[in-house]
């Protein structure tokens, strides 16, 4: 077994980015993700990279856009209010098909909110909080190991589709330490970027834009984007599934909550209740198929989130059949305990049919 290192989630993510070949970071401080810029401000200069503390999140995302346009692997990270300020830029990046990693270590909202763990930005991340018809690729780690691994994966997917990718996590994952295997094998060499702006030497000038004025041009562009999103839905769905064959009920949960759910599932097992788990790893594209397939066999579903009900919509949208679907959520920094989840499992099982 490869050697393990005890690392904080935020640091693991930053190391993942470096392992993926990311050498540019532009960002603005905000709790609870400050370890990322703090770590990278020390490391990037050592390896020929650049760290800039931007004057704002608006500037950050636009610096990211510039560096990406110039052909670099580049990232930023922030939380709640900062991510909201990046929505215009992210829409532009999706529109001009520029890859980059944007990390959201969520904090409670709406507003300034607290820094307790939450999953309240699911809608923003998966529905495109910016204007227009576009999606981010969204990855949801559930361990410090995945903070490392998925950072690499996010860069790869982002490059593959020329679309911004987001890591959506929370303070638990950002602040916690766990043993990690720092294996760089995951990191593909970044693909060539023939579209990058490098100076028109030996080739025609090229440009990146999002304004299309001639008739039908923008529509064609938007339909092309849609095709990309459809391809993601086909090719790059990631999830973890457990006990999806023989359980009485299946839980859908992501990120931090999925860990708590696992404990609850063990507790339920101890009481003889068989509970399955679907943990979406890509939130966009959402693992529609596995949900659809699973509920055909197990028509009882419990969705647990740290919000008032967001991913539950994607679960519902994945289901074509009549199933019993229950939502349990703790918003605003409340963390569900395994005991809470166990209770909800039982309630769902006990509920009358429909």
């Amino acid at each position, binding site marked *: 077994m490869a050697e393990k290192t005890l690392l904080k989630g935020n640091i693991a993510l930053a190391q993942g980015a470096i392992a993926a070949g990311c050498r540019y970071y532009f960002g603005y401080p905000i709790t609870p993700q400050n370890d990322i810029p703090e770590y990278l401000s020390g490391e990037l200069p050592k390896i020929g990279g650049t760290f800039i503390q931007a004057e704002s999140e608006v*500037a950050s995302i*636009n610096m990211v856009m510039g*560096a990406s*346009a*110039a052909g670099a692997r580049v990232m930023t990270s922030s939380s709640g209010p900062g991510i909201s300020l990046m929505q215009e*830029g992210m829409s532009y990046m999706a529109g001009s098909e520029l890859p980059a990693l944007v990390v959201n270590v969520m904090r409670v909202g709406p507003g300034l909110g607290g820094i307790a763990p939450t999953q309240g930005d699911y809608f923003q991340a998966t529905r495109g909080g910016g204007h227009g018809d576009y999606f981010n690729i969204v990855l949801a780690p559930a361990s410090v190991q995945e903070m490392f691994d998925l950072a690499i994966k996010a860069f790869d997917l982002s490059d593959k589709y020329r679309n911004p990718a987001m890591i959506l996590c929370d303070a638990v994952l950002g602040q916690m330490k766990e043993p990690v295997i720092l294996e760089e094998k995951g990191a593909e060499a970044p693909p060539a970027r023939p579209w990058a*702006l490098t*100076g028109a030497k030996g080739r025609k000038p090229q*440009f990146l834009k999002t304004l299309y004025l001639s008739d039908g041009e923008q529509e064609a562009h938007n339909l092309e984007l849609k095709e990309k999103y459809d391809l993601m839905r086909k090719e790059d769905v990631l999830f973890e599934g457990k006990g999806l064959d023989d359980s009485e009920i299946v839980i859908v949960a992501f990120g931090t909550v999925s860990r708590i759910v696992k404990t609850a599932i063990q507790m339920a097992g101890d009481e003889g209740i068989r509970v399955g788990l679907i943990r979406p790893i890509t939130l966009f594209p959402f693992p529609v198929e596995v949900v659809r397939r699973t509920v055909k066999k197990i028509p009882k579903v419990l969705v647990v989130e740290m919000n008032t009900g967001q991913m539950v919509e994607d679960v519902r949208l994945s289901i074509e059949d009549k199933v019993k679907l229950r939502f349990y959520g703790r918003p605003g920094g409340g963390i569900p305990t395994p005991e809470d989840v166990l209770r909800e499992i039982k309630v769902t099982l006990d509920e009358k049919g429909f």
Partner: protein
Amino acid sequence: MKKVFSRPKSLVDCQTHFCPGCTHGTAHRLVADAIDHFGVREKTIGVSGVGCAVFIYDYFAFDAIEAPHGRAPAVATGIKRVHPDKIVFTYQGDGDLASIGTSEIIHTANRGESITVIFINNTVYGMTGGQMAPTTLLGQKTTTTPYGRNFRNDGYPIRMAEMLATLEGVAYSTRVSMHNAKEVLKAKKAVRKAFEMQIADMGLTFVELLSACHTNWRVKPLEGQKRVEEEMIPYFTLGVFKERKEKDFL
């Protein structure tokens, strides 16, 4: 006979969408002239703001990108940090640079990024139909100051070249005009100087070009040129506000 004046190579040979007499056209040529002059067309990356000049990628024969409104300096920062050996410039209107993009231009200047900023001050939002700009003169009527700009409600015309000159990171800050041939020639020198200093990695170079927007001022082109001279220049003084001599400053 030899051709002694022709279209710069860096300027695509096509019709622009600018209104008749719009000096955006002149400014475009001056940029292309400087790029040609220093022979850096194949190393140049342009960043357009959003405004009437958003289409620089259609008009310049080098790489370009369209930045979100006001954010060109941040986008240019990202590009320049990845390619320190390239020539990077932004081309921004007064709404773009002095209003929504205030923060970006000030901090990019303060970091002393080695980029050139071409700033077109025409005292209105041209593209969106003539609303007040931060540079709109007091008393000037625009579509959002129908009674004339009033400082108690709308504030003062901002002088960007002077303000930026106060920042350490700025290597060169100047204001020129394009309302007649003499001034165009001076403007040409200023634009060249700005790129020259960028090539020498001196810090941020800033050229404010007074420009007319006849369409939204609702005057004929020649009247617009007159207004630049008679109304704009008295408030927006022409001149060099800063020119640094050494590279590593401080």
